[in-house]
């Protein structure tokens, strides 16, 4: 089998060329538009970068207008993603319901936001959650509350309802014209490949077992429970350098590791901290148990958890007067003069875009709170926190360490069935056609993308017969993920925002078309989300440096909660951060509660 050049070995491959093509998204030198795609509809749906950018570009005019409405609450939660909703949930579980969640977008969820069309619900971002280990108390509690987790087995493994676990078959990879089961390409592996794979596996096992002198694991979830000093040297390396040092050059192993870095962090192995890379492999394994946990997933991905969380913490869900306030652009957070114990400490100014979607015209509202929870990414602080805004020189240097990977996410609606035919021939599973049958996660080896996830895997979309106004054809939705990880994130982000719908469509179909020859014909619709700041980037130095700890310290009446405080954009981290910040607030407000975080 031909060797595929990897990042460290040799000249450009087809993959690199493709990657370069995708990296130069809309760079002005695009190939001619693909003809014959006129039947495909779609648009760029979000997120609402215009609203967000008005923060950066709108100047003080956004804050200068008269305050139209005033309100006071116990806690103002800024950001309605997983961290913000988890904070709200934690407050709510402690009996504190007098809070507001302010969210810029029309829909809650942040990068776990769900989407929906006439076929199915589908994810716009995060799409699964590994079954948590027992030490994630708060997360286990949430899953128990949502009737997903039923208990623990003797080995401490969480037992979840069968229908919430990702169904088999879960993963396959496409390589040179065929699909193969699993994510690591075993077919054609040489003895040396196998040896290196085992060597890497041993290295992971070593770190699974590694503990600090006080018994903390070297790699744990949440990151805050890890003992970073045990493997501190890994945070000085990139994952690629680390593999080099281990003498691991097998291309298929390196592809696998690179895929893992792109999948979890939006970074190449050549950019990603080895600490983060090893965390991916080691943190979720329990000592003495080699098999990684099952994953929980739903057609709308983690959007399911977002919706359930919102149901549990919301009142008149998402109404203008409710606890959950989408379409609220937070423009200012300022400390109030200390008026003694129990008084409001923070004032939050936000534009109510539900009354007017134009930030220049929307009414400015004031929310005074005893405490605020900042559940927004760290890079927004200098645009919103009053003291940083008024004195740019006071913005600390460590804030610059938070950088974010841009992502393009596409949802394709296709006129085709997801699964193999109902009564496929007996040997269909492995021996027919293009190889292993469609899975939940379908990954392309020679591609800069991560491939696609199938929304109808957990629950088939019903076929609407002609008699009921349908056309009797099966349909499915694929979510295609492309981390833009090749260049500087700022440049990549600029390119991403210039990307037109038609360019994006052509790129996605060209990429998928290699593995799915009929995708051009079957696709009816492609919609896009351009996540400019999709994931915090765990580059070397971030995870064991001072920035994370600094960024998590409360300032004035503001407590901080976001997955970026862990340096890794994981659901567990976002949830943990939200719960932790909520518990800080509960402590500050002298509420009685049993800590989970």
């Amino acid at each position, binding site marked *: 089998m031909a060797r595929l050049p990897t990042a460290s070995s040799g000249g450009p491959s087809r993959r690199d060329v493709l990657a370069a093509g995708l990296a130069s998204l809309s760079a002005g030198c695009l190939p001619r538009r693909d003809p014959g795609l006129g039947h495909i509809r779609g648009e760029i749906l979000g997120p609402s970068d215009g609203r967000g950018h008005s923060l950066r570009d709108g100047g003080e005019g956004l804050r200068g207008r008269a305050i139209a409405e005033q309100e006071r609450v116990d806690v103002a939660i800024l950001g309605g993603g997983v961290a913000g909703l988890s904070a709200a949930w934690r407050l709510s579980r402690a009996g504190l319901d007098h809070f507001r969640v302010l969210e810029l977008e029309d829909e809650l969820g942040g990068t776990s936001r769900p989407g929906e069309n006439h076929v199915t619900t589908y994810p716009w971002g995060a799409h699964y959650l590994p079954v948590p280990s027992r030490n994630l108390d708060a997360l286990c509690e949430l899953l128990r509350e949502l009737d997903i987790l039923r208990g623990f087995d003797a080995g401490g493994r969480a037992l979840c309802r*069968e*229908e919430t*676990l*990702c*169904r*088999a*078959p*879960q993963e396959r990879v496409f390589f040179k014209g065929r699909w193969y089961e699993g994510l690591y390409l075993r077919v054609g592996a040489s003895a040396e490949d196998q040896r290196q794979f085992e060597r890497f596996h041993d290295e992971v096992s070593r770190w699974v077992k590694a503990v600090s002198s006080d018994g903390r694991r070297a790699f744990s979830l949440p990151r805050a429970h890890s003992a970073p000093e045990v493997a501190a040297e890994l945070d000085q390396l990139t994952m690629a350098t680390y593999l080099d040092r281990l003498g691991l050059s097998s291309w298929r192993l390196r592809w696998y590791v690179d895929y893992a870095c792109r999948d979890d962090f939006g970074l190449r192995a050549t950019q990603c901290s080895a600490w983060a890379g090893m965390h991916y492999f080691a943190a979720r394994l329990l000592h003495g148990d080699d098999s990684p946990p*099952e994953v929980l997933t739903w057609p709308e991905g983690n959007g399911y958890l977002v919706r359930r969380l919102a149901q549990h913490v919301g009142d008149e869900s998402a109404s203008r007067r409710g606890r959950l306030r989408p379409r609220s652009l937070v423009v200012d957070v300022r400390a109030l003069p200390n008026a003694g114990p129990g008084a409001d400490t923070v004032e939050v100014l936000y534009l109510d875009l539900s009354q007017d979607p134009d930030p220049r015209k929307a009414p400015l509202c004031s929310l005074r709170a005893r405490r605020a929870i900042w559940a927004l990414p760290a890079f927004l602080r200098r645009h919103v926190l009053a003291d940083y805004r008024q004195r740019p020189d006071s913005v600390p240097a460590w804030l610059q360490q938070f950088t974010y990977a841009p992502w393009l996410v596409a949802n394709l609606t296709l006129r085709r*069935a997801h*699964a*193999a*035919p*109902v*009564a*496929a*021939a*007996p*040997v*269909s*599973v*492995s021996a027919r056609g293009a190889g292993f*049958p469609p899975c939940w996660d379908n990954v392309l080896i020679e591609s800069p993308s991560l491939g696609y996830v199938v929304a109808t895997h957990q*629950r*088939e979309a*019903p*076929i609407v*017969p002609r008699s009921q106004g349908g056309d*009797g*054809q*099966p349909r499915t939705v694929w979510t295609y993920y492309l981390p833009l990880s090749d260049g500087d994130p700022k440049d990549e982000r600029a390119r991403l925002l210039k990307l037109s719908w038609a360019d994006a469509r052509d790129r996605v179909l060209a990429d998928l078309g290699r593995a799915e020859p009929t995708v051009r014909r079957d696709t009816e619709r492609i919609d896009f989300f351009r996540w400019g700041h999709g994931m915090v980037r765990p580059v070397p130095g971030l995870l064991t440096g001072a920035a994370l700890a600094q960024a998590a310290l409360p300032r004035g009446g503001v407590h901080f909660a976001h997955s970026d405080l862990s340096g890794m954009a994981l659901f567990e981290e976002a949830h943990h951060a939200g719960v932790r910040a909520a518990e800080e607030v509960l402590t500050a407000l002298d509420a009685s509660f049993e800590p989970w975080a």
Partner: protein
Amino acid sequence: MPKNAQPLEGVRDSVSPSDADPEQPAGNVRPPADSASALQSESGALPDDAAAPSAAPSYRRRRQMQVPLLFLSVFIIATCGLGYELIAGTVASYLLGDSVTQFSTAIGLYLFALGIGAYLSRFFDREDELTTRFIDIELAVALLGGFAAAILMLTFAHAAWFRPVLYSVIVATGTLVGLEVPLLLRILRRSMEFKELVARVLTVDYVGSLAASLLFPLLLVPRLGLVRTSLLFGLLNAAVGLWGTFLLRDSLRRVVALRLRCLLVLGALLAGFAFADHITSLAEDGLYADDVILSRNSPYQRIVITRGKSSFQLFLNGNLQFSSADEYRYHEALVHPAMLKAQRQQGRAPQRVLILGGGDGLAARELLRYGSIDEITMIDLDPVMTELARTFPLLKEQNNASLSSTKVHVHNADAMQWLEEHARKRDPRRWDVAVIDFPDPSSFAVGKLYTTHFYRLLRGALAPGGTAVVQSTSPLFARRSFWCIVRTLEEGGFFAYPYHAFVPSFGEWGYVLAVPRPTGLAAAGQTQPLLDFPSASLPPGLRYIDDAMLRALFVLSPDMRRPTREAGEASDDSELVPNRLNNQILVSYYEREWKRWN
């Protein structure tokens, strides 16, 4: 079937005094307005007075050269004529079943139509147009007969239309073919004397019939399939027509236009021949031992029905679902043990039955033997399958029109989603018996219907004391798969009673009778009760199951019993893992086991 009913009405006119003179050309009685001239095309002169002795030698010589060619045409026409007859008979008996009735009806109707054609031939009065008409009729036969099989194949699935279309095609083709020989006789009558003419035409006709009846089953249908065979006969007819424009050109009007028509018809038939695969799925014929008489693509599967000598078979995506010859064994074994077990447990005859899968309607047929049943709810994914089972004559006959019964309610839905909805909506309906008749777990899409999750949902749909039965692939060929299903049912909260039946088309086949295990305190330490059935409760008319057989079904030979580590069997993986949504282990067991046999 010989065309011995070929009437000779058209010949009657040609009987003339000159018949007595063997040396006289037949055409000497009347001025040969048209036909005989063809035999003299070389001379360019019409034998206005054919009786002239001087003309006789050259005439005879030419006739000797060309008459064989004309008789070759007769031979071809005869072959084709019988070919259409065979096609009509074959298609009718394939599609409607009951081959004796269908073949007799089709042949009888066809012969009768030949008579109509023969009778109508007398209305072709204008002798000068006789040749032109003959060629037109050849073309019409070529088109109608040539596309007959294709037309019938395309309409047969729509049962309401099929019979009228079938009989119309038979009558129309027969009528046109019936016109051929009388007209040909009239065309030829002047070139030879009557007794020779009749003798030769009929001889060639019967020889052609023999050729057709041998070629049809031995060479043409096996090689080309019905649709292409039919088109081939059409091509031959059209070729005769085209050839006729040369052989008989001097008696023709507007020869160029006529030849153009011939070419058009030939072109259409050739195109049909080339695209026959698109008309039906003839390409599939090679996959099946018997002839494919129906193939439909539904959104979910490819449904194929084949017909052999005495039975027909249903295939889904190439997998045999039943053979009409022995499906009674399979379905009696599927349905009756569960019915009796439910009766024993509930102390009354079951009234409400749920069928999951079973879209062929055959399990429903068995259930309808019980007068106690008021309602059967069937959940089958594929509306195309249930519609065929309701309307396609062969299937409808086989399932005794069970899906048209007012007691049977068919819902086309995914059984798992339907059960999930049932649970989610807290639907109060419960069923006394559930018959689970899905295809084998050969793909993940079907494998999910054999999971612990599915069986837990199923348990929730059963009435107190209710019973389920699951078709469970072969305990002999796929022993591990079979016991995995048993294990999964146990994990899903059932007492499982595995059993088997011998179905010649399938071999040893397996089922699991499943009774919900009581939950709560009563369940603590409860062991699986012994199986017992009420006696003398089976409905009449069964061919496979009786009281003795009922008990025998549950006796498994050692080579089909649960694999154990002690026995050293299945050493690779002796601990059976229940099939769950997130492992679908059954699909891999199944694939591994059946690979050995394929």
